């Protein structure tokens, strides 16, 4: 079952097609926040940049990057149509400054902006990206010499750093088991 997703068209929150500076970003941010707060059931927000002609790093920092940082671990934000390489660089720079990963999807392929997973968690992250939801036991079963405990540690790290989301689930044994979700 897919987790509820909502779509954000960033241009709808901007006065013009160009996003410039912290001041403009800080005017847009409350409206974005309001949208998220009025969608309490949504876990993942897909951000469309349709109609956004240009943004600078400061605007990026104050809008989607700050939103992602605020909800890190609880809700996730990803781009679905980021095709302009120059704009991607600016989102990347802003996200890197705040150590906030942001995933950008392009025809089913994911690219991480801002921060990359460490070498030790990269395999787990790539495994998680291939499916909407996964569990530590699934990764452990699919990976040579990987214990469930080790897999669980890796996924937990990715969740804490903002690469994945997490929900409590009931394990077959009846206890609590975490499900990890890619963002997008």
């Amino acid at each position, binding site marked *: 079952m897919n987790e509820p997703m909502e779509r954000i068209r960033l241009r709808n929150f901007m006065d013009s097609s160009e996003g410039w*500076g912290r001041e*403009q970003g800080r005017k847009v941010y409350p409206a974005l926040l309001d949208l998220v707060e009025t969608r309490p059931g949504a876990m993942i927000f897909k951000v469309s940049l349709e109609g956004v002609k*240009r943004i600078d790093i*400061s605007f990026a*920092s104050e809008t989607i990057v700050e939103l992602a940082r605020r909800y890190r671990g609880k809700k996730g934000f990803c781009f679905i149509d980021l095709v302009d390489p*120059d704009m991607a*660089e600016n989102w990347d*720079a802003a996200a890197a*400054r705040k*150590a906030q990963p942001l995933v950008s999807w392009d025809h089913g392929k994911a690219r991480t902006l801002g921060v990359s997973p460490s070498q030790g968690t990269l395999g787990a992250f790539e495994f998680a990206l291939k499916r909407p939801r996964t569990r530590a036991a699934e990764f452990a079963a699919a990976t040579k010499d990987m214990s469930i405990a080790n897999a669980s540690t890796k996924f937990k790290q990715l969740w804490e750093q903002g690469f994945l989301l997490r929900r409590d689930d009931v394990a077959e044994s009846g206890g609590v088991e975490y499900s990890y979700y890619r963002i997008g």
Partner: protein
Amino acid sequence: MDCTIHLPPRWVNAETLEGALCSAGHGPHGATTTAFVFPGGCKIMIDAAVRLLSLCNQLDASTGRVRLDFEEGESGVMGYLNRMGFFDELSPNAEVSPARPTISGAEVHGGSNPGLVEIANINHKARDQALPGRLTDAVVLACGRRRDVDELGGAAFTVFAELIDNVFSHSQTPLDGYAALQVYPKGDSLQVAVSDSGLGIMQTLRPALKTEYPSLAGLSDTALLVEVFRQGLSRHGADRGCGLQGSAAKAIKFRADLDVRLPGTRVALKPGKGGYATAHCQDNLPLVWGTHICFTFRLD
């Protein structure tokens, strides 16, 4: 006490302007009257023009008299400055010889030369939200035949947006700032200049160094400036300060030189491995308030 600054009878860029300021002995700040003399054959590049404008208005604001003498009248460099809108932004108290132009060249021709963008005013009281985009559109228009025009436009927007936003956010002065650009086809270059008359990067950054970046507190102004552009520093802490760093990252793709004038220092940076590195540095320069930044993009 009077100060007379003679500009040379040839192209004047930021470096040449500095030479002229130094040759005048004591700097213009503190003088009763400052005269800038433009001889025949003098031509001025946009980086020098924007700094000169800021300086003239600073001197006027500190109650000094300012006079600009154009020996060739409107047929020389005065005509170019008029075309740029220099006199539209120059304090009305400044005296212009032989006479201030009666018609603004910028108003008449504004926007018609894709290689030149008239001096844009950065007014703290009325923020022009379209300014970075308008300057960028001019770059795209001027360089429309280039295959990398989209990339160049993207880089220009980031540079303009971040530099001008800094003027609003950090300069802490009621005096206007200025932005302008010029494409120099023969030189295969594009100059992007932003100038303000505020406190200067160091004066706004240094008070925060001990708490935010203690390991950098002992650096000289020049070394600290390199770090500002290399790793990004901000008086607001580690999750800010990406504006100048981001601008530098864009400009380096076009092998842009970077020239920064601060109240007593001028630093010329050239792109190298890992970012910008100091190519040339001058200290103990005549006082010019503010931060004056120019990127010169290579278009060849």
